[in-house]
């Protein structure tokens, strides 16, 4: 864990509740009280309707999704990824929040096995002291 060379998510004014929850192995999503859409990535107001009436909803730590799209990266474009190639970078479409797609890696999966629609489940990867990153593995 101390050898983690990859970029660590930067906390900002807008995304801090998400990453604070992630550090506790919980998923929290920003939601718009005016139009009912999830506002992900979180922002200063809802990108669907402009409302500033936003709250945070806890989704817990048992989060399921399916692969909406993916690419397979054979070259590292950022530091720390050299040993992970080929790397599956995907969009996970959340089962509980179908409008939300999260960019992620699909771990423990051969590149020839990934497909659009593949069921995946979230796991927590501890990447630094008190920091955790949501990641995804094939759901058995």
């Amino acid at each position, binding site marked *: 864990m101390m050898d983690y060379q*990859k*970029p*660590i*998510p*930067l*906390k*900002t004014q807008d*995304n801090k509740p998400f*990453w604070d929850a992630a550090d506790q192995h919980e998923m929290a999503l920003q939601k718009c009280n005016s139009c009912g859409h999830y506002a*992900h*990535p979180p922002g200063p107001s809802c*990108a*669907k309707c402009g409302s500033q009436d936003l709250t945070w909803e806890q989704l817990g730590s048992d989060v399921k999704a399916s692969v*909406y*799209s*993916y*690419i*397979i*990266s*054979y*070259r*590292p*474009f*950022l*530091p720390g*990824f050299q040993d*992970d190639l080929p*790397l599956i*970078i995907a*969009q996970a479409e959340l089962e509980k929040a179908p409008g939300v*797609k*999260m*960019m*992620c*890696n699909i771990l423990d999966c051969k*590149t020839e096995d990934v497909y*659009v629609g593949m069921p995946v489940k979230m796991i927590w990867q501890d*990447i630094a002291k008190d920091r955790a*990153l949501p990641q995804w593995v094939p759901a058995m």
Partner: protein
Amino acid sequence: MMGTITDRCAIVGVGESERSRNSGTTPLHMALDAARAALTDAGLEAKDIDGFMSYNENDSCTSHELATYLGVRPKYVKDIHGGGASTEMLVADAVGLIEMGEMNTVMIFRSMNGSSGQQVGRGYDSDMLQTALSGGSYIIPYGSASPSQWFGMFATRHMYETGITKEHLGHVCLSFYEHAQKNPRAFLHGKPLTMEKYLETPDISYPFNIHDSCVELDEANAIIVTASDRAADCRQRPVYIMGLESRQCHPHAHYWEDTSQVAADYVADGLYQSAGVKPEDIDVAAIYDCFSWVVLRQLEAYGFAPRGEVGDFAAEGNLKIGGKLPTNTAGGMLSEGYTHGMNNALELVRQLRHDYKGTERQVKDCELGICTGWAGPDIAGALILRN
């Protein structure tokens, strides 16, 4: 029905610098070469230009510097931050300023050491990228930092939904590489591509291999726009601006939140309405081609083939000279060279002027052309030009 801006302005000159992997010079020197070539092409002198505009990603010289070293004092300079679709946006701005009488003649240029200098998607600090990109903390920690990865995410989903295959992407590449073989100035002139070779080339970011990606080079391009009544005094046959849509933005396209829509989907209606023409009227095309798939997705957006049939449209040879929609006839950014969209615009102007008349490069009897810009799934713009 003609739009309000139809035929009121024209492109009267185009020019470019040398094209190379390593220019050994600065963007200012290359911009001056391109600007002087465009002035010669138009039969104008530098003092005839009263407005200079450019776009960059902190990798170029300014419009003010270019004007200074052409020895003129312009009324107006403008530099915007931007990549693809900026050519279309600046042409629209030039038309607006000419129409309001603020300006007579505008030079628009793009100069970049895109190979030897700062390359798109490479050499950035990862924390800076997280801050610079909207939603960056949800992208960068997963290793996604290259346009090939961002656009690939859209491509895989679109291929899944429409049945577009790797071979279909290959047909886009083959068509443009074939054009490059007719263009001695194309960087990949002398390097033809076969489907067999395309398919056996390993991927960089599936679904893209090196042939699906543009050729990053050092180069500058310039375009001169003026009012139509002044265009008659220029050396070249004017290419009139029939219609345009300058810069449509698709909200919240963080490269991953909604991969089903792209900004180009919203450009077509306004574009064709402003020109008073339909897709079937277009004879020749310059389609932004940072990646092969981007061409297919735009052909769908601009109504050249129905969704689900764009792959076959390319496979049937329709993008080649002699096909239904000869596209990127100098080789495009996939094989001529990459200057953030402007070299394709130069080629379209030359085709519409019939500069290649009597050669195999000329699209026969072409009257009407489309030039599209794509900064990504989030920003697009387009022009319709006529001779």
